[in-house]
């Protein structure tokens, strides 16, 4: 995970307020099937470890905000322009206090589009770091960040996890894009 810089082309506070007053488009995880061919047994690992989805009274789950539904495409364009990539997929995830996105990778139904040369994965923190909030990518942990801090991952396939033992919702923008030629 590489710190890219602080993206100041967005009013992150305004975006946060917008999200706080918006119903998320859906809940994650997106794939509930334990036998999805691209899951690499991930959900079995979760089950074996004792994780339970929030729907079933557990702690695994996160809100998903989508561009065009919950926030504008222009927000995505501004961030992608700042990074220097063409957007492929962007979403905002939010973990409620006391909930988890356990270690996983973002498997897709069709992964061929993401496995192309020049495809890069980033995340952006929408709020400043708060006690009890942490975001892991591989063996690294993002902490002590400020709103708008951008990190690049080694690969979109990197395993990652989000945790929230704090008192405020934790928002993260996730971006997969292709480097401009």
């Amino acid at each position, binding site marked *: 995970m590489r710190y890219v810089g602080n993206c100041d082309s967005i009013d992150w506070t305004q975006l946060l307020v917008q999200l706080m007053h918006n119903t998320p488009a859906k809940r994650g995880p997106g794939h509930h099937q334990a036998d999805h061919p691209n899951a690499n047994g991930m959900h079995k690992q979760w089950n074996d470890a004792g994780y*339970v989805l929030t729907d079933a009274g557990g702690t695994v789950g996160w809100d998903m905000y989508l561009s065009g539904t919950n926030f504008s495409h222009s927000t995505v364009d501004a961030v992608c322009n700042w990074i220097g990539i063409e957007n492929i997929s962007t979403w905002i995830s939010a973990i409620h206090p*006391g909930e988890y996105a356990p270690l996983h990778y973002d498997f897709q139904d069709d992964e061929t589009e993401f496995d192309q040369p020049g495809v890069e994965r980033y995340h952006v923190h929408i709020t400043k770091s708060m006690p*009890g909030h942490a975001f892991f990518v591989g063996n690294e*942990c993002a902490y002590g960040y400020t709103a708008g801090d951008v990190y690049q991952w080694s690969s979109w396939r990197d395993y990652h996890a989000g945790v*929230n*033992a*704090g008192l405020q919702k934790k928002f993260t923008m996730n971006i997969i894009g292709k480097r401009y030629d």
Partner: protein
Amino acid sequence: MQYIGICNTIDWKNLIDWLDIDTGYNSSANLPDVPPVTNMFNNLKNAGYNMNSIEWLNFYPDKDYDPGVTRLFETYVGATHIRSWISCVKPGKTAPWHWDWHQDDADLPFDDVVRYTANISPWHPGQAFFVKDGICYNDAVGSVYQWDHYTDYHAGVNASMVPKFQYNYVGLRCDM
């Protein structure tokens, strides 16, 4: 929170291997009914905290493991033992943002009490421990941290696939 070093006078792996996780005391389910504690947990509820996530299991010297561990750690940090325990957070559970209230603490010399935390199980991605504005993760087994003050707010999380263990020690400075 200040990093002290690695305490390797204790065989942490052997210690954990001997613990029976099913016999850990569910401290989070037996919280004292006193205002400082109820206020903290009311704050969590008011924040929409998923209360199903709150669980940590405690293990105590004499009852659950060899009290010789206490003496070895006391020697390592050079602080007279008041109390100590091993805590465990399972995957998907949290020790939420809180401070440790204890019924006997009113009689303690507040400024002379010191607190240490040792991360004693091999680190796995998704595990972290917070104290005030600090965090520890990806530490070597036996890594010891001293807190600024033993009543500091703290939290523990575990988004990995295996339980996370840490050793907790409250003592009195020996240089008083």
